[in-house]
């Protein structure tokens, strides 16, 4: 791993306990103004003191940079890609054909002062060409991120009808392993249902693995995070579970206590 990558990872993964609480509030890029992030400035202001890192889309990162100033501010993670895969039938304009494109480069992330760039690796594509394209974009990002010393965090997400309860853990493993081999410096993976199977994911990755939970709210969220940490996870990437909670700041604070082992 390059020097810059190691240094930047340490900007949000606490060197003392190797853990991080990453708050994802870039959903506006893919889904418009969903509840909890309508006034994004307000959301950032509320949550910044309890987050180790905040994920923003490139446009918002530039606009909200003042919240990341100073040594103790959270680290900025920039979203590299856009997809319509989360736009289901209940959405105003549901996706008719699944699409996934890159919107920012590692260089863009650096120019914004980011500590890492974050991108999806989806598995379960109907069309194998789409999976190949996703691998291509992750690999390109990895190469660029190597050259610039900005860590690449890949979010492994099984999507579509080919994913079942039976093959879920294996699908997460597939996405995780392919991403690491392509050059990911850290992984965000959804919980596979039990400690054993998630431990297998963490052990095989050999890079920090954060449990990815952008859907669940309490108490499901806390159960998942606690079990994932026991399985060796380095922390959590959380979204709605915080900003759509009844008390977002309190929830984030409690999550922080669990992750960083504070009584």
């Amino acid at each position: 791993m390059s020097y810059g990558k190691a240094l930047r990872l340490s900007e949000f993964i606490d060197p003392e306990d190797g853990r991080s609480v990453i708050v994802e509030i870039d959903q506006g890029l893919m889904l418009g103004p969903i509840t909890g992030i309508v006034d994004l400035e307000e959301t950032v202001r509320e949550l910044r003191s309890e987050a180790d890192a905040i994920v923003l889309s490139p446009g918002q990162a530039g606009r909200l940079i003042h919240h990341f100033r100073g040594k103790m501010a959270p680290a900025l993670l920039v979203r590299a890609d856009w997809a319509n895969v989360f736009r289901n039938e209940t959405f105003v304009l549901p996706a008719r054909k699944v699409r996934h494109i890159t919107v920012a480069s590692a260089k863009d992330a650096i120019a914004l002062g980011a500590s890492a760039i974050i991108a999806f690796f989806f598995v379960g594509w109907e069309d194998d060409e789409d999976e190949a394209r996703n691998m291509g974009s992750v690999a390109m990002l990895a190469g660029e991120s190597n050259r610039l010393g900005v860590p690449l965090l890949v979010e492994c997400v099984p999507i579509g009808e080919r994913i079942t309860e039976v093959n879920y853990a294996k699908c997460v493993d597939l996405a995780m392993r392919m991403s690491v081999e392509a050059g990911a410096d850290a992984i965000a993976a959804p919980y596979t249902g039990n400690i054993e199977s998630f431990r297998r994911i963490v052990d095989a990755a050999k890079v920090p693995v954060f449990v990815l939970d952008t859907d669940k709210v309490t108490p499901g969220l806390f159960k998942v995070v606690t079990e994932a940490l026991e399985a060796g996870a380095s922390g959590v990437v959380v979204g709605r579970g915080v900003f759509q909670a009844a008390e977002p700041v309190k929830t984030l604070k409690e999550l922080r206590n669990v992750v960083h082992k504070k009584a």
Partner: protein
Amino acid sequence: MSSPGKTLRLSKIFNPDDGRAVVVAADHGFMLGTIEGVENLENTLKSVIQGGPDAILVSPGQAARLNYLFHGRKSPALLVRADWTNAFRTKKYTLPLRSIARTAVTSARDAIALGASGIVTYYFIGHGDDEVEARNFELMAMFAKECDKIGLPYIVEPLPMGERVTGANFAKLVATAIRIASEAGADAIKSQYTGDVETFREAVKAAGVPVLILGGAKAKTRRDALEVVIEALEAGAAGVVYGRQTIQAADPAEFVRSVRAVVHEGKSVREAMGAVLRGPVRWHLDPKKCTGCRMCEIACSFSHGQGFTPSKASLRVVFSGLGECEPVTCSLLLFHSPTMLTSLSPSLTYPSHRPLCVEACHWGALTIHPTLGYIQFLEEKCTRCKKCAKACPLVVIPFDEENKIPLICDMCEGTPACVEWCDSEALTIVGQKSEG
């Protein structure tokens, strides 16, 4: 308006709360070889980092090798020296320069790849050959452009050097170079303090970007160095860059802490130096060494704003009339059993370490420092009753007539002026090394 990357990275160097920075330069090895302080740079920097500097400047090679020292949010920001020169290899160094040469050694992009929060280069001005002058400017402009594209802060160090630099035009050259650098795209300047508040204030105004001064390089004592910093801060400086004074200090962490106290905590020099006390200090008096020069009294009165007035000192020299003399200080702070020439005044005896002045004050204006043991005076509680002065059997509490307050020995909060000025070492302190 700065780019987001520059804004974010600059805020890791300059504290957003006060817009100031304490930076330590440790890139000397790159240009001068192994000088004192850089033999074991890793150890030196570990100590420096304990003092809490905002940023540390190192060469590209060390930025890679010692990268781990910069990990984590609490660590200092990494600044990389992006150019090299032989300009400092004067005659006392091996293979001294025959003509000034310089070269770029890394790019903004490579610095980013190392995790840097900024790069620093020189801007040479004053060369006899205008072609060289133009090339020096061009190098700066190119770095500025690259830094702009990539969101990396660019700190320029104007360096008047060459045949056309004279003593007379030096200050003007510095000011000119600062402005040119700012126009070319520097985000901050690292410059010598002009030595004069007015000219420096003008230079800072003309810069339009934060100006860091090279910390009291010519100062002989730490106290002088910090006085220069305070003056420069008042004139608009945004902080200080210390090099050799830090890495060659006996205790680099302590040095950085005292600089932070001045730059970020608004402490006075006395307070900042006192900030490094680690335990109680006590007087050690050696009457045999006292020459009766009374410099201690003069140093005391002067450093407390009383001019050169021995009668306003919080200690005094007692003469026996038989050619003997000894300094007499507040007995609360004596390290050992006192001696005393009583032939002059038989009633003059040391009380047995009881703070009679503190006991005499009914208003709570006098307290004893809980860990360091010296007497602290709280002006807001003083009623000017003078009971403390009357209670002191050693007669070492004079009165400041202008401010109407007793002048009680406060150990100068850690580095007593009387000790600094006592040439014969009749008066020393135990528990704290004197500053040099």
